[in-house]
Every structure is written in structure tokens, then in C-alpha cells.
């Protein structure tokens, strides 16, 4: 296949766009906003082009590009997509323009800097998903923290400094351990392969050969970093603060994409590089995941701040994804992949909606609301629709993911117990409780707070932000095969890499023939 | 003589006195060099003394200039009070 540079174009667009943005006079706010939106839309178009050129039937990496970077250590600029990253790239490029559009009126000061950081953030996110070189991946992984830190710290709410510092240091601390593990892995592989390399595909061959006990440490080092990002209980406490204090755009991108990088990390690195350790630790991590599902849901139930409620719901939902990953069969992993996308859409939409109503009322406290159904009917419908999607009503997207994960976990031979599914399924009950309870308190009932009488319903721009998300919510719910087919071969491949490590040892072969 | 110089550097509060002590230390080093040069019959020692004296002079000039600048700002040459770099 001829060399395609599409992925580099994809990464270049936000980069060049952000650099060009510097030259625009910061007084011209409208120009800045339109420019930023245009750049993110171009990136979306490019990702669509990549999607249409993507071959669902192949489990290998596609659109691969490799250029030498640091010759001595054999570090290269090595990028490529497979089924998993394809979907996540689409999610990223889809959500970024929507986020920028939703912040049109919400961000009033330093608009240019904000747009700049959002574009850099997009670059970082895309870079994480396409990197096939460990060093490159680490660079992008850490690089993403910087714009996020600023976005929360400058444009956030009351406790923004505390939240952004906590977010930054907490995430970085985990990543440092991962750096140590990366270095160890590269050095170890240098001995086997006869030379340094940070090429992931090569490391896939050497990783499983590491002695089991050491593999365990490496696995945990990587896992800590990803576990903080996801977040997995008990490493989740940065999330409520970060989400609450971040501006709407920050929350949407944080929930929509950044959290997925943790789950992506597990699938891309932990599982294939350390298969024996993955099998060893699967039960432990699944237990934490299930605890997270229930704990997150119960704590969400008693929150008084709408954003904190949605933040804890993220903990609960991503617990499902982790459970799906470590149940290690086709149903559950596919469920986990589609649930990543679903969570990005549903929780992203929830944050958008909370942001929209906040713009009008300047309060996030549930007790300040009540009875707004008559005043803002479209908003009420949108909130209900999104809540139902998040709850997992069949016919909408959430159900597909949750169902596949639960049924996979039930028959998982790695987990080997029904109890995971039994407890995780109670999360289904609690999700309905906390979301519909909030909905009832906010939307139904009588209007008690008369400051609310004059708030306006959603305008065209806001509807334009929500409707594409709703379209996908229904599409994934009714005909998920469009999306499941993209990742199915990749899921199969990853599962096989873990559950049959013997195939891997032969140097030179990564895919075992069917 | 060297030790006397050290004690002076460490314990005296007046910056000028500290400099005098430093000069004392340098001169003690000079003395040692000349003595041993004479004892060992090697002229290198005496040559080195010239270097030391030149360095001492330069350093004293710069140091005194700094003290005068500080004095102009803080009106004191008491070292204990010149602690802006304190935590």
C-alpha cells in the first residue's frame, strides 16, 4: 500500500492552527473563535477521510508512518491507527468542534489563549491515540497535561487552582512511574533485540518474555498511571474536583476524551506487553472496577452539585469499561470499546447541558432548581434524553455497551465468577436512581426559585451542539454494527495476544494466523 | 594564622572585619608558600605568591565595592542583617 501521510496531516492541523492563532490579534475575538472552530472542523474532516479509507477486516495498524527521530536510541516518529484508535480519533475530532462551539459565549476573557490551548490539547489527544512509539506516546501523554492545567486554572470556577494543581500532580506522579517502567522495558528489550528500540511493535514481541514476577511490577507501574487517568477506585478523587472547577469545555473534553486515554492505555500497552501479568491481575483490577461502579453510583446519588454528580457518574461508568477490558472475551472487550465512545458522547452531553443551564442561572446546586420543565422544554427533553442514554435504556447507545460488558463478564473464563456481573449489574439500578432523581428535582415539580422564571430555552447554536450527539446516541443504540465492526478485529487480536501468549514468543510474528 | 582567619570569617559580624580575616587567610597562605619555597629551594612557590596577591587585591576591590553598595541601600555592614536570601 502506498505511503499515506494522512495521520501527520491530522496531527499537523491543530498544531499549525494553534501557531497561526498566535498571530491573530487578540482583540478580534470573533475571528479567533471562528478560526479555532474551522481548524477543529478541518481536523474532523481529515479523520473522516481516514475512516473511509480504513479497512475493517484487517487487525493490523493502518496508515502507518515511520520517520527516524533520535537515531542513537532508535526512537522514531511512528504513528498508525487500528480499530481501537480509529474510533477514539473520531470521537476526539468530533467532540472538539462541539466543545469550541459550546464555549462561544461562555468564555469571555482571553478567548485567544483559550482557543490556543484547546487546539494544543486536541493535538496532544490525537498524538496519544496514534503513537506507536513509546517515547512519542509518553511525550504526548505528558504534553496533554499542560493545556488542561491552564484551562482549568484560568477559566475555571472558585477552587480552580486547587483542582488544576491536584489534577496535574496526581496524573504526573503516576506517569513518572510509567516512565521508569518504559525505560526498564526498553533496556531489557535492547538485550534481546540487539539494539535499543522504542518501537511498540517490537516491544510487543519482547514484553511477554519478561519473567513473570518482574512483569507484574512493570504491569503495575503502567497500570498505576492509567488507573489514575481512567480513574479507577481509589485513585479517583482528582476527578470530582477537576470536573467541577473546570469550565464547561474543559469538563466535556476531560470526560469525553481524556478519561478514555487511560482505558486506551490498558488496551494498547498493559494487555499486549504484559499478558501473563494481565491475567494475574485481572481479578484484582476487576474487583476495583466493580467497587468503583457501585461506589461511584452511590456517592453520585447524594451529591448536591450537578457537576459533581455527573463526575461521580463517570467513575461509575468507566468502572464498567475496565470490567469489560479485564473480562477478556470478545463480547466484553467490544462492549468496553463501544462504551468508551458512548461515555464520551453521553457524559459529554450531560456536561454540555449542565454548562448551558449554568450560563443562565449561575448555580449548579440542585436545590436552587425545580420545575423548569415549563420554562425550558427543549432543555428538559434534552436532559431526559441524555440521562436515559447514560442510564442504559435499550434503544440508546449506553445499553449496547453495558449489556455487552455484563454478558461478557458473566461468561468470562478469566474472571470465572458470576459475582462480578451480579454486583456490576446493580450499578444499572443505581444509575437510574441518581440521574432520574436529579432530573426530577431539577425539571419536575413546582417552580420554587423565582429567579428561574425568565431563563431562556436553548438557542440554535446550543441545539446545533447537542443534535449531532443525539444522532449518534440513537445510531449506536439501534445499529451499533457500524462502529463495532471497526474495532472487532482489533479486539480479537488484543484478546488473543493476552490469552495465548505462546504465539507471541516467536520473534518476527505478532499475529497468529486464524 | 589560617585558623585565626577562619575563626574571624565565621564569627565576626562586621563585613569589613570578615574581609580583613579573608585577607589574613590569604596572607597566611602566602607565608606558607614563601617559607616552603625557601626551604625546598624551589622558586615556583615565590612565583605563585604573586598570583595570590593579585587575586587577593582584585577580590578585595570587588568585595568592598559590593559592601559599599549594600551599605548605601541598607545602611549597615552587619552581616546578620543582610539576609534577603533567607527562606
Amino acid at each position, binding site marked *: 500500500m502506498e505511503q499515506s501521510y494522512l495521520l501527520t496531516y491530522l496531527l499537523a492541523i491543530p498544531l499549525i492552527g494553534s501557531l497561526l492563532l498566535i498571530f491573530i490579534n487578540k482583540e478580534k475575538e470573533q475571528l479567533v473563535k471562528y478560526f479555532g472552530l474551522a481548524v477543529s472542523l478541518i481536523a474532523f474532516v481529515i479523520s473522516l477521510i481516514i475512516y473511509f479509507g480504513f479497512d475493517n477486516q484487517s487487525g493490523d495498524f493502518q496508515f502507518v508512518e515511520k520517520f527516524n527521530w533520535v537515531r542513537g536510541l532508535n526512537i522514531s516518529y511512528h504513528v498508525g491507527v487500528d480499530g481501537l484508535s480509529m474510533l477514539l480519533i473520531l470521537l476526539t475530532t468530533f467532540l472538539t468542534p462541539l466543545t469550541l462551539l459550546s464555549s462561544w459565549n461562555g468564555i469571555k476573557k482571553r478567548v485567544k489563549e483559550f482557543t490556543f490551548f484547546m487546539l494544543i490539547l486536541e493535538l496532544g489527544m490525537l498524538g496519544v491515540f496514534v503513537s506507536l512509539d513509546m517515547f512519542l506516546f509518553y511525550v504526548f501523554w505528558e504534553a496533554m497535561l499542560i493545556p488542561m492545567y491552564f484551562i482549568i486554572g484560568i477559566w475555571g470556577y472558585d477552587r480552580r487552582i486547587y483542582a488544576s494543581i*491536584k489534577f496535574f*500532580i*496526581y496524573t504526573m506522579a503516576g506517569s513518572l512511574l510509567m516512565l521508569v517502567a518504559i525505560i526498564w522495558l526498553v533496556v531489557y528489550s535492547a538485550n534481546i533485540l540487539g539494539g535499543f528500540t522504542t518501537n511498540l511493535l517490537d516491544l510487543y514481541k519482547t514484553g511477554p518474555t519478561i519473567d513473570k514476577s518482574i512483569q507484574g511490577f512493570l504491569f503495575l507501574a503502567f497500570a498505576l498511571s492509567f488507573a489514575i487517568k481512567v480513574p479507577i477506585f*481509589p485513585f*479517583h*478523587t*482528582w476527578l470530582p474536583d477537576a470536573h467541577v472547577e473546570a469550565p464547561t469545555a474543559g469538563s466535556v473534553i476531560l470526560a469525553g476524551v481524556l478519561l478514555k486515554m487511560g482505558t486506551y492505555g490498558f488496551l494498547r500497552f498493559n494487555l499486549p506487553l504484559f499478558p501473563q501479568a494481565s491475567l494475574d491481575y485481572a481479578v484484582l483490577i476487576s474487583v476495583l472496577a466493580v467497587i468503583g461502579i457501585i*461506589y461511584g453510583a*452511590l*456517592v453520585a*446519588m*447524594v451529591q448536591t452539585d450537578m457537576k459533581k454528580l455527573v463526575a461521580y457518574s463517570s467513575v461509575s461508568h468507566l468502572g464498567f469499561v475496565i470490567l469489560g477490558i479485564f473480562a477478556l*472475551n*470478545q*463480547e466484553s472487550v*467490544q462492549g468496553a470499546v463501544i462504551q468508551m465512545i458512548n461515555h464520551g458522547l453521553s457524559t459529554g452531553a450531560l456536561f454540555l447541558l449542565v454548562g448551558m443551564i449554568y450560563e443562565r442561572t449561575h448555580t449548579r446546586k440542585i436545590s436552587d432548581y425545580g420545575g423548569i*420543565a415549563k420554562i425550558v*422544554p427543549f432543555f428538559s427533553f434534552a436532559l431526559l434524553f441524555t440521562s*436515559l442514554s447514560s442510564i442504559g*435504556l*435499550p*434503544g440508546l447507545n449506553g*445499553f449496547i455497551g453495558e*449489556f*455487552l460488558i*455484563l*454478558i461478557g463478564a*458473566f*461468561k468470562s473464563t478469566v474472571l470465572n465468577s*458470576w459475582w462480578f*456481573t451480579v454486583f456490576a*449489574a*446493580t450499578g*444499572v*439500578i443505581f444509575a*437510574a*436512581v441518581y440521574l*432520574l*432523581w436529579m432530573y*426530577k428535582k431539577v*425539571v*419536575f*415539580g*413546582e417552580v420554587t426559585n423565582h429567579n428561574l422564571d425568565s431563563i431562556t430555552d436553548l438557542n440554535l447554536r446550543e441545539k446545533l451542539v447537542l443534535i449531532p450527539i443525539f444522532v449518534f446516541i440513537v445510531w449506536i443504540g439501534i*445499529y*451499533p*454494527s457500524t462502529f463495532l465492526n471497526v474495532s*472487532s478485529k482489533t479486539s480479537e487480536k488484543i484478546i488473543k495476544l493476552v490469552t495465548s501468549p505462546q504465539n507471541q514468543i516467536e520473534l518476527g510474528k505478532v499475529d497468529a494466523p486464524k | 594564622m589560617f585558623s585565626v582567619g*577562619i575563626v574571624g*570569617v*565565621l564569627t565576626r559580624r562586621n563585613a569589613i572585619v*570578615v574581609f580583613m580575616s579573608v585577607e589574613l587567610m590569604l596572607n597566611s597562605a602566602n607565608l606558607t608558600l614563601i617559607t616552603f619555597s625557601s626551604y625546598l629551594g624551589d622558586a615556583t612557590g615565590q612565583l605563585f605568591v604573586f598570583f595570590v596577591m593579585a587575586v587577593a587585591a582584585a577580590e578585595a576591590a570587588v568585595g568592598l565595592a559590593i559592601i559599599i553598595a549594600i551599605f548605601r541601600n541598607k545602611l549597615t555592614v552587619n*552581616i*546578620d542583617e*543582610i*539576609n*534577603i*536570601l*533567607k*527562606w
Partner: protein
Amino acid sequence: MIHLIYLTVLFPLFGFLFNGILGPKIKNEKVIGIIGSGTIGIAFIIAVGALFETLALPVDQRLTIITLFQWIDVAGLNIHFAYQVDQLSLVMSLVVTGVGFIIHVYSIGYMHGDKSFWRFFTYLNLFIFAMMNLILADNFLLLFLGWEGVGLCSYLLIGFWYDRKFEKSTTASAGLKAFIVNRIGDFGFLLGMFLIYSTFGSLIFTDVFSRALSFNVPEHIFTLIAIFLFIGATGKSAQIPLLVWLPDAMAGPTPVSALIHAATMVTAGVYMVARCSIIYASAPTAMMVVAVIGVFTAFFAATIGLVQNDIKKVLAYSTISQLGYMFLALGAGAFSAGIFHVMTHAFFKALLFLGAGSVIHSMHDVQDIRHYGGLKKYMPITYGTFLVAATAISGIPPLSGFFSKDEILWYSYANLGIVFWLIGVITALLTAFYMFRLYFLTFEGKEKFDSHKTHPHESPKLMTVPLIALGVLSAIGGFIGIPEIFSGDHGNLFHTWLAPVFKSAEIKLMNIGSHSHFEEILFMAISIVAGVAGIYYAWYAYLKKPAVADKTASRFKGAYNILLNKYFLDEAYEASVVNPIVKGSENILWKIADNRIIDGTINNLAKLVDNISGTIKKIQTGVAQSYALVMILGVLIALLWLIISYS
């Protein structure tokens, strides 16, 4: 028309979208009402057509599957949007679309003038869409889509008047309660589905049921599957222990109570168990559980219904009780009897609710029957049809209720034993009693309202014609299921029609013992006597000597109080389940575990670093001499080390 069966699902969906999107703009009640009802009417016609086509097919080839498109295809899970047309789904479809259509027409009259008229019909059509998916699905997953969908519509419709209060709380809370309790049941249903998939490798009915016969599966797996599914059924069909949502569901507009909480949604559980007859037949323990819960719920709910004063509450508990009968039938292995009662119950219970709606409408939203009385002269049609329905539910021949209830009682005796039958008969007596208590207090006797202030009147034709239609069905609907002993060669037509669906299950059960015709007629007579006795006592206590009722109530004050407060069941749940979870989450999980312990650890870690650096920073004194001191000390140590290492 069989191949068009998916239109019975799509037409209501179209109605939902049309009224949902254009409804607020159109504002014309007629158009909205016609679209809303018309879609259901068309669905009914298609169902009738499918029925005739199926009748023309040979008896053993009456199962057709119409596939629309693929839904999920992952590993062994290959589910389509596909609909199964067979005898059972046709019966249910006809009931749902037929009774549904009648209720839609009634609603045009009942909801006239409501400012959210369009929203009502939007939700109603969505409900029918979901219900049709439920009963026509050819696999568990699509059934579950309908299952949860009807739960959603129930939530939306119960809380339809979302700014109104209801009892001690709000209508919205009642809707939420319904959804949550249903979800608890759904949790069980999901587990059942998972177990089915991991045992049989598929979720499609035809696959699962044929493999249930051919695979060698241990009985305890069947029992587990059956119990899990049944938990779902107790949620949806309001049986013990998940019945608490149904009485609160009366917060919704009365047509909603009629359609959803009497005729259709609540019967979903019965349908599901009947559909899975082979699974239940393979798990006798589970069948016993079903029967016990069914009969106990029937009795329990009937006792509560005896003393309720809100017209809709009486009907709500009556519904729970009658659903108990249906499960009793299923537990006894009389699957077609259970479905028969679903049908007849749909007729007379919907009629009772619509009649109650008519009364409430004309009495300006007063629902307390102690403020009614003597309404029969103001509302003749309502009174007449209500009387028919009340008689039917009391099991008086030759109305429909008699045939279906009697069949259930007979089979519970024949297959389960005298105890079940006895409780059933006593419940039948109670049923007749509370039903006619309701009738006498509402329509007969002295007027207990101020006739200067309230002017009761008959309802408009849009409401009375549906009443008459349902009245006719309640009266003659039973003739399709005349028991064998009377109908001779024809046999029980209804039973024969459904027999192929339950054939494998009945073969497994093999327990229809031989009982004589004499026994059957004897027991039939006893149940008629019980019904008549109930009516007589009600007449005596509420019409002839009205003081008797109050005197009995005050004599047995304790028991009366317990019944009036529904055995304090809600309060018990609140105290033992709801409050511990909510308070526990708030105080223990959030405030202590999350804020203090987990987050506290992180924050304390940060403080620790802060403290350490606070101590270490003191080295920077700013005084040059201390630095010099350190330097000199360092030099000394280095010198010493050198000296020592060289000696």
C-alpha cells in the same frame, strides 16, 4: 398481513415522532388525537389480518418470523430486530392494539383541554411502540428493549402532570418510584438473560427453547434462570415483593392507569413467563415459587383493597390481585389459562378504570368514594358498563371473568392442591366484596355530595362509546374459552389455539391428573357461590345497613388500620432499604470515605511534602557566614577522609 407485522411496531413509532415533533405547533386536538389513535387502529387491523392469515396455516406451522435488520452481532450474540408471529404473540397483539385503540379514543375526550394534550398522545404512542416490541420480539434482547421502554413510558405518564402534588409527595416522585422498582426487577431479568446466553449460547427464542429440550442442562440452572426472569416479572407485574409502585402509579391520568397499569404493561411479566413456559416447566421449584407468590399476592392485595377509599386505589390493588391470579395459573402449569385471564382482565379492568375516569371527570377530580353515592341516575352509561365489569371481575357467569377465573381456580386445585384453590376462592369472595363495595358506594345509595356545588353528568360520547365497547367485550369475551365439559367437541377454543405454543412445556409437566367432571362442576359452583356471597355482603354492609361497615371498622380498629395503611409496606421499605442506602452513602461513603479518607490521604500527602520542605528550607538562612561554615566543615571532612584513606 403477517409479513407486514412490523408495521404494528412502526406505526405507533411514527405517531410518537409526529406528535412529538409537530404536536406543540399544531395545537389542534382533533388532528393529534386522530393521528395518535389512528396509528393504533391501523396496527389493530394489521394484527387482525395476521390472525386470519395464521388461522389459514396448518396448526403446526403457525410460527413465522419477520426479520427487519441486524441489531448486535458480536461473537456468539447475533440479534436482529425480528418479530415472531405466533399464536401467543397474536393474542397479546390483539389485546394491546385493540384495548389500546379504545383507550386512545377515550383519551381524546378525557384529556380535552389539557395544555399538554400533544405530549400525552406522544407518550401513549411511544408506549404502544415499546409494548409491541415486547410482545412481538423473537429474542430476549428485543423483548427487554420493549420491557424497559414501557417502564420509561410509565415513568413519563405517571408524572405527566409533573407539577402536581400526589398524596404526601409529588406525581414525579411516583413516576420515579415506578421506574426504580421496575429497574430492580430488570436487574433480575438481566441476570436471567446472561445465564440463558451462557448456557444456551443464544438469546433467540426458537434457539433457546429448542436447546432447552435437547441440551443436557442441570435442573438448578433452569431454576436459577426461571427465578431471575421471575424477579423481573415481579417488578413489571407488581407482585410481592416489588408491588409498591403500582398504587402510587395512580398519580397518572386515568387512561394511563387503564392502559398501562391494567391492560398491558403489567401483563408483560405474565406474557414473558408464558413465553418461557419450557424453561419454567423444566424447573418445578421455580413454578412453585411463581404459584406461591401469585396466590399470596392475590390474597394480600385483595385484603388491602377492601378498605381503600380512593376509587383508583381500590382498582390498583385489584389489579395486583388479579395479576396474582395470572401467576397462580402459570405456576400451576395452566399457561393458556393465565393468558386467558390477561385478556378478560384487560377488558373489564380497563373498563373499570375508564368508568372511574368518567366518574372522576364529572365529579371534578374528586376521587374519594365516600363523597360519591347515587350517581347512577346521572351517568347511566357509565353506571351500566361499570356494573357489567364489576360483575365480570367477580366471576359471575356468563360474563368473561367467570370463565377465565374459574379455569385458573380449577387448575390450581388439579395441579397444586386444595390449599392454593382455597386461598384463591377466598380471594374471589374478597374480590367480589370490594368491587361491589366500590360499586354501591359510587352509584347506588344516598348522594353524599353537595348537589348544589357538584353537578355530575354523563361523559361525552368519545368517552362513553369506548365504555360500551369494553362492556360488550367483558360480557361476551369469555365465550372463546368455554371449558371442555361444556363445549363438547369444540373443546376450549382459546386453549386449543394456544396449545402448540405450550406443547413442549405441557409434555414436560405431565401432571394433569385425572379429575372427574363432577369435581370440576362442584368447584365451579363453589366459586360462583363465593362471588355471589361477596356481592351480597357488600350489598348488606353498604346499601341495606350502611352503619354496619363503620361499626365493623371500629370494632377491628387495629386490623382496619393495618389494611388501610397497606400493611405499612412502603414505610417498611423506606426504613429498611431506602434510608440506609441513602443516608449511608451520604454520611459514610461520601463524607467520610471519599472526602476524609481517600481524598484526605492525597491532601495529607501534599501537606507532608509541604511540611518536609518547610523544615528543610530553614537551611537557607540568608546569612553568608552560615554558608561559609558549611563549606569549611565540608572541606574539613574531605581532608579528614583523605588523610584517613591514605594512612
